[in-house]
């Protein structure tokens, strides 16, 4: 008989299996830890840092740290949520996230996390970066203004679709989503609208064309639910055609 291992998360006893991360064990137990770059189908990335938790006195990402027997983890603390809120605010001001006219509004994980963390203002000065959109592909749109560099599309295209369509180019604040074609245009790749990479974006950066706003207000993923109540909802957006 396998020994059941447990750790405590905010005082709750969380069982886990050997090799699971804190995030995986928490999710399996129905406990929400805010995150954006984490997706259960893909290898941990550890880049957005929203899932940072206190592990026995040191800070670490819940999505990359393995659970250990007897470990004491704190997540829902005032200080950690303040940090998460600040990180989310930084994501908002680094890009151009105009929720009022964004077709992802109501289905957007970035927006939903911001609501969950009670982010009331952007707080920081907007960068208003000049970013372009790539509308060259007949069925898929890249809206770089909304990219948060989570690399889920990179991972999906590489690990699931086997196409390697996406990558991150540049460094630091100049990092940007790039496309693996000589022209740099999405139209010149073998990307298909049915690819996993086309529907994994947590924000409105990669979109299926001509479907915007076809889901009415009230029927969108987070219209009536906090993201903590439906953490799985945004993992695979329902087809709308």
């Amino acid at each position: 008989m396998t020994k059941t291992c447990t750790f405590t998360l905010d005082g709750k006893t969380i069982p886990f299996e050997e090799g699971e991360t804190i995030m995986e064990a928490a999710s399996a137990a129905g406990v929400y830890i805010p995150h954006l770059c984490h997706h259960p189908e893909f290898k941990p990335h550890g880049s957005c840092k929203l899932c940072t938790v206190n592990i026995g006195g040191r800070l670490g990402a819940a999505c990359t740290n393995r659970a250990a027997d007897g470990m004491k983890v704190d997540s829902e603390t005032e200080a950690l949520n303040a940090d998460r809120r600040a990180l989310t605010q930084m994501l908002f001001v680094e890009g151009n996230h105009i929720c009022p006219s964004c077709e992802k509004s109501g289905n957007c994980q970035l927006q939903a996390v911001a609501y969950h963390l009670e982010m009331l203002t952007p707080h920081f000065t907007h960068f208003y970066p000049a970013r372009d959109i790539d509308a060259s592909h007949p069925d898929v749109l890249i809206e770089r203004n909304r990219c948060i560099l989570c690399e889920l599309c990179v991972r999906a295209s590489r690990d699931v679709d086997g196409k390697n369509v996406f990558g991150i180019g540049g460094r630091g604040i100049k990092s940007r989503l790039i496309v693996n074609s000589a022209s740099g245009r999405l139209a010149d790749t073998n990307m298909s609208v049915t690819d996993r990479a086309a529907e994994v974006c947590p924000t409105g950066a990669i979109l299926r064309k001509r479907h915007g706003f076809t889901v009415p207000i009230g029927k969108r993923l987070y219209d009536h639910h906090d993201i903590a109540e439906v953490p799985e909802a945004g993992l695979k957006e329902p087809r709308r055609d």
Partner: protein
Amino acid sequence: MLPNLETAAHAANLRRVVIEPVSRVEGHGKVTILLDAHNKVHQVRLHIVEFRGFEKFIQGRPYWEVPVMVQRLCGICPVSHHLAASKALDIIVGARQLTPTAEKLRRLMHMGQILQSHALHFFHLASPDLLFGFDADVAKRNIVGVAAVEPEVARKGVLLRKYGQEVIRYTAGKRVHGTGSVPGGVNKNLSRAERVELLGEIDTIIDWSKEAVDIIRNLFIDHATLYKSFGRFDSNFLGLVRADGALDLYHGGLRATDGQGGTIFDHADYQNYYEYIHEEVKPWSYMKFPFIVDKGTEAGWYRVGPLARVAQCDFIPTERAEAERIAFKAFDGGAALSAPLGYHWARMIEMLHAAEGIKELLLDNDLSGGDLIVRGERQLRGVGVLEAPRGTLIHHYRVNEDDQIVSANLIVSTTNNNQAMNEAVRQVAMQYLDGRSLTEGLLNHIEVAIRAFDPCLSCATHALGKMPLEAELMDADGAVIDRLVKGQA
């Protein structure tokens, strides 16, 4: 016509009086008046001091985003922009004929908006002038004053607007800036339960709308001389009419008539609006001056909005509003048709029509149908026109093969009325200000004329009579000689 008052022949040594901002209108504008030493009026201009830039910054955006984005032009009648853009994009996606459910849902949304916007304007913005007098005590001349003296009138005004907003919420998802209309149709229908809920109040709404018509009609009867003559002038009219000549606020062909009822053009296909209407730019205003091509810049300007629509249509296709239209046109041999204050009367007739139209639509089972969106052969350009609360609204887009907006031209209702509003303030300035020393009450006469048009100057902010009206008297060098601020002795 007073074209000589647009630009004074000799501006030097004239005193400049400024009304800024104009209050109880949507958005920001100002009026400048140039007077000589004897207070004789030499120049009057209505300026729009805002600059929006929507036509520029939607370039490059995916077309399906546009109906949601451009409605942010306005917080009062965003549905107009939402629907006008949708209609233009219907053409782009090849949906020349929507499903009955989609078209009726959009018509219902539009009727809700006509109701709420007209109620807002009449009760909240205009009624203080109309009920208390144009130069009544300024402390009382606002919606709070109306609520104190005529609590039932104010209450019904608030509830009429609320009902219209609810119709919008049911059809668009939100009271302001919803998403209900999409290229080729709508994203939701109305359930039977939702229809039953809205039907619950509609008879009261129709009755109250009829009472509102009575209020303004009785004002015309009781103060006939003032209401007929205040800022009066003749002009051309422009608006949509249905194929059979009926009033249709959502769709139709363009009709233009001159002041005497003569036809300039009729049932014109608005996809080619630019063959009929051009826009002139003047150096002193951010707002363009549209005119009817055949008549030229001098004689081709026109009025749009409730007055133009009710004056021009052959009939109104709802019973009670049609009876009111007949009374309106018959009043004193058609005297209300040229009077700026006739806008208020026509506006209330339209509100009654909207209330009746809402009931008719809510009883139609097509509203609960499931066929919401159609698509056809993709086009690269499309024009959408409808009759917004304030008048004819034109959206024109070109889209590239990659689905991005290449160019846009928006001619909004208030732009169509630009020259007419200038004419109205010139008439009022000559009637009431010329040769007299200025008082707050006299300056309010200028604003009363502007308000009659219900202009949406920007559009999203509004003042509810709280904004400071300030007039400054300057000498030719710009030094302030005298200053008058609303609400201060």
